[in-house]
């Protein structure tokens, strides 16, 4: 089954983690961890290995247990069941101040009664670092986040982005095994957010520290992560690289949460578990060949499934000039319901009898003139290749 109670089973195209490659200890190992608050199960039987030096993101809707997971790694919450290992050591009962893990909080949590340098040096002072050493390393840390010269500034005088960077410097200066970031860009405006995403990624590569990042913004996760862990209702739905999650979502939740897709209902009539190839008879008479994305799924023949097709894989052609039906392609007829010009691409909504309303995207590579040919009401043919058919069992 796919809900990743056993995410360690390699998925097609999933990168092997370092631990699988070299037997090196993962920075964080979460083994069968469950966390309950009264009746609420915030995290449910989670299993996860975080490889050294990578950028991991927890992605999921509000309330799916992302923060709770992070807080358990940091030591602010104790698992109800299961065990967490940091650099190979079990950490049950170890308080936050004895864990070599640091957190960047969503609202930064900078100390208001200290200036920038005092904030950044806080962790070092707890370890009895000498004043000279502290000053030097604070300088280095501020340089790393491009805030040199801000040592004496008051934290509340800084912009959101600058406060964010102070929080980063304050955490990184301790050289933690893992840096935890809980929606650190949530309070920033869109433009600054985009800049900070790239900056964070570059920073992570520069310092080589493992980042575990929490977000509910799929684009943010796709931009920065080596590995994304998609969560829902406290469970890991799927983990993998950005491309893998987009191209091979294992279930409806992942397919809808990352990107958009056109769902077509049907019944699975053929399935070859060794290759994953499946054939679906749709409810309105279409026969689609595609890939059952979940390698662990062993659906019985006749199982109700969904065939998901990404909008950019659909080609929309005027009915008058449509290419003839071809092997390895599916096509349905319909009428343009709406065409929306969105700059780099145009989005078409096509009403079809066989597959309902379908959303297609076309890059405006040839300029705006090229899309003027079709308008609302025009008969069109929607075509796509079999390789675009993602068969989702769950």
């Amino acid at each position, binding site marked *: 089954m796919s809900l990743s109670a056993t995410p360690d089973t390699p998925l097609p195209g999933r990168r092997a983690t370092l631990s699988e490659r070299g037997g090196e200890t993962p920075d964080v190992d979460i083994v069968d961890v469950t966390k309950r608050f009264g009746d609420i199960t915030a995290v449910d039987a989670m299993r996860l290995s975080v490889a050294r030096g990578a950028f991991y993101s927890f992605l999921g809707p509000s309330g799916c247990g992302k923060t709770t997971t992070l807080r358990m790694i*940091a030591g*602010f919450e104790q698992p109800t069941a299961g065990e967490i290992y940091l650099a190979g050591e079990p950490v049950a009962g170890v*308080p*936050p*101040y*004895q864990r070599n*893990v*640091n*957190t960047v*909080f969503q*609202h930064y*949590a*900078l*100390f*208001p*009664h*200290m*200036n920038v340098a*005092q904030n950044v040096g*806080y*962790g070092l002072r*707890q*370890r009895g670092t000498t004043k000279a050493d502290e000053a030097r390393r604070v300088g280095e840390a501020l340089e790393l986040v491009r805030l040199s010269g801000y040592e004496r500034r*008051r934290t509340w005088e800084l912009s959101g982005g600058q406060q964010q960077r102070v929080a980063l410097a*304050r*955490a990184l200066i*301790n050289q933690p095994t893992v840096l935890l970031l809980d929606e650190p860009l949530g309070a920033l405006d869109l433009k600054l957010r985009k800049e900070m995403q790239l900056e964070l990624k570059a920073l992570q590569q520069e310092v080589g520290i493992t980042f575990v990042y929490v977000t509910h913004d799929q684009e943010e996760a796709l931009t920065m992560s080596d590995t994304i862990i998609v969560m829902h209702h406290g469970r890991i739905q799927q983990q993998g690289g950005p491309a893998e999650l987009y191209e091979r979502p294992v279930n409806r939740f992942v397919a809808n949460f990352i990107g958009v897709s056109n769902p077509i209902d049907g019944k699975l009539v053929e399935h070859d578990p060794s290759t994953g190839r499946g054939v679906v008879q749709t409810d309105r008479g279409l026969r689609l060949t595609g890939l059952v994305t979940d390698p662990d799924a062993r659906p019985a023949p006749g199982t109700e499934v969904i065939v998901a097709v990404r909008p950019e894989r659909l080609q929309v052609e005027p009915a008058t000039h449509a290419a003839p039906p071809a092997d390895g392609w599916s096509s349905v007829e319909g009428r343009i319901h709406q065409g929306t010009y969105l700059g780099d691409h145009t989005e078409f909504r096509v009403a079809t009898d066989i597959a309902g309303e379908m959303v297609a995207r076309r890059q405006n590579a040839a300029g705006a003139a090229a899309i003027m040919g079709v308008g609302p009401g025009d008969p069109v043919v929607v075509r796509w290749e079999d390789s675009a058919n993602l068969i989702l069992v769950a």
Partner: protein
Amino acid sequence: MSALLTTALVFPAGLWYLALLVAPLLIVVVFSFGTRATNGGYEPGLVLNNYERLLQPQRIEPFFTSLWMAIAGTIGCLLVGLPLAYFIATRAGQRKGLFILLLVIPFWTSFLIRTYAWLIVLGRENLGGFIGELVGDPDFRILGTPAAVLLGLVYGYLPLMVFPLYVTLERMDRTLVEASKDLGAARWATFRQVTLPIALPGLITGSILVFIPMMGEYVIPSILGYGRTFLMGNALVDAFIQTRNWPFGSAMAVGLILVMLVTITIYVWFVNRGRHGRDVSVL
């Protein structure tokens, strides 16, 4: 128009302030340079001998007694009030309201009655006698000693210390404590480096709120101290009511105000030294 309105709105309060605060203060200052009328009271004059008398050893003693009692009482309120406020603000959870209520309820009863209640509690039949038995001294007394006065002071003014502390602690961002622990500071280190500095404005406000009335306290030393612990309040009552020497009483009042101003200034300067945060707003 709006300036007129502002004036109109501020006027009553301004009048109040003038009539009940500034004017009496001026009168006291003026009186302090006068002389005692033959039958007591005030006779205009411009002499300094009231202030000279203040400096006589037996006259200045109540100042020092008041000062150290008020300082000890403030420290007592701090020692009891800080943990209490911290507990209510951070640990009491759902019962927060209940604890606040328990602190407020005594305010609904007369201060006099509450002080008399201590008379019974500390009496020989109760706590006083009990402690006497414990230490094996049949003549042991609490009532009539400075300790009883101190206890009464701390009891009487504790809420004034707890409320401002509670408010600052309650308002404090709890993630700051987590951030501190995350960065390697254990509980006490976190309290010392984060919670306490952030609670400082409340601490200063609370200290001043309890210190000022303690300096002039009259009821508690009279009842629980049997008047043996002679504070400024008692001295003032003596001057105005017993000997009816108003100018000398006024001079004492001015002296009291000066002592409080100096003490508070030193205190605020002391706790704020080396602080980097926003200016602490006092009161």
